[in-house]
């Protein structure tokens, strides 16, 4: 972990006694107070980081957990409908084939059920489920010698490719072959083109595994940088380098497609 400015926490109630989020830079809080938050903690007392970087469980998340614990099958069905495909997509950045990814996700669902009682609501339900998946996927990936541990990488895996082909700049570093402003102005318009979606999916598949994980978590699933660093146990700079390379690769792929249209 590299050093970051400590997150600011705002106490909603004076003298609040609840643990203050799960960030390692969490104002000197130590582990000894973790695990003390009862499931029934009123949401109003859960203190959220001011920047919203580590998002705590929402009232909806807590309601879902309560219903699952009560054995409500419809809630579980909705949860798998919402998350299964997304979990498979995330798992694919850790394991080499679709079948293994499906296996890992099935394991994950059992992990979710067996872990329900220990869910403390200090992260969003989504983040918690992703963390369970990643732990399982890592174990699986290591067993299959597919996973490159994050710690063995410098500042990101894959070659240090420039964001844009250097041949497109003049010797003064200014555009010689400038980009066109894409005509499609909304994501929906881009995704309506089946070929564009295919190219995007292909570009993501071709990313080096760790860049792919970071891109999926950040840009597809919308987790914050802090959450991704924490969940993947990587430093902030490393996270940003991988995000930059992954986004640049996706940008290049889309540009190639949209400009040849």
């Amino acid at each position, binding site marked *: 972990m590299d050093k970051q400015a400590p997150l600011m926490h705002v106490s909603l109630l004076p003298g609040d006694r609840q643990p203050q989020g799960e960030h390692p830079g969490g104002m000197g809080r130590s582990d000894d107070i973790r695990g003390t938050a009862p499931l029934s903690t009123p949401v109003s007392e859960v203190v959220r980081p001011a920047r919203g970087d580590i998002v705590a469980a929402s009232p909806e998340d807590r309601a879902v957990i309560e219903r699952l614990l009560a054995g409500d099958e419809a809630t579980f*069905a909705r949860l798998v*409908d919402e998350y299964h*495909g997304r979990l498979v997509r995330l798992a694919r950045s850790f394991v080499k084939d679709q079948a293994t990814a499906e296996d890992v996700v099935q394991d994950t669902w059992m992990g979710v059920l067996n872990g329900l009682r220990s869910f403390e609501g200090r992260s969003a339900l989504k983040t918690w489920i992703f963390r369970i998946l990643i732990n399982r996927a890592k174990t699986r990936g290591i067993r299959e010698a597919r996973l490159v541990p994050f710690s063995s990488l410098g500042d990101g895996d894959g070659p240090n490719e420039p964001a844009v082909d250097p041949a497109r700049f003049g010797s003064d570093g200014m555009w010689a072959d400038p980009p066109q402003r894409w005509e499609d102005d909304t994501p929906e318009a881009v995704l309506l083109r089946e070929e564009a979606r295919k190219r995007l999916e292909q570009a993501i598949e071709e990313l080096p595994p760790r860049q792919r994980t970071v891109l999926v978590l950040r840009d597809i699933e919308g987790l914050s*940088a802090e959450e991704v660093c924490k969940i993947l146990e990587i430093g902030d700079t490393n996270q*940003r380098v991988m995000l*930059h390379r992954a986004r640049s690769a996706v940008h290049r792929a889309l540009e190639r497609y949209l400009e040849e249209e």
Partner: protein
Amino acid sequence: MLTCQELTELVTDYLEGRLSLWDRMRFRFHIGMCKHCRAFLHDRKLAIKTLGKMPADPIPPDVRDELLDRFRNWKRE
């Protein structure tokens, strides 16, 4: 002045809010002056937003049935 090529490498730090105040000013100044880099930034933001809208595959019906079975078993335990 920041070159276009440099800008394409700083864009992630810019969007992440991780540029120093000085670099942020240089970045914005360049964007204000250079329509090609404005196009680049527009396209980059659109690419990122598009990723956020990518649908995942639906769960296969047999997998769904199996998971619901497992839920019932879990409930019984």
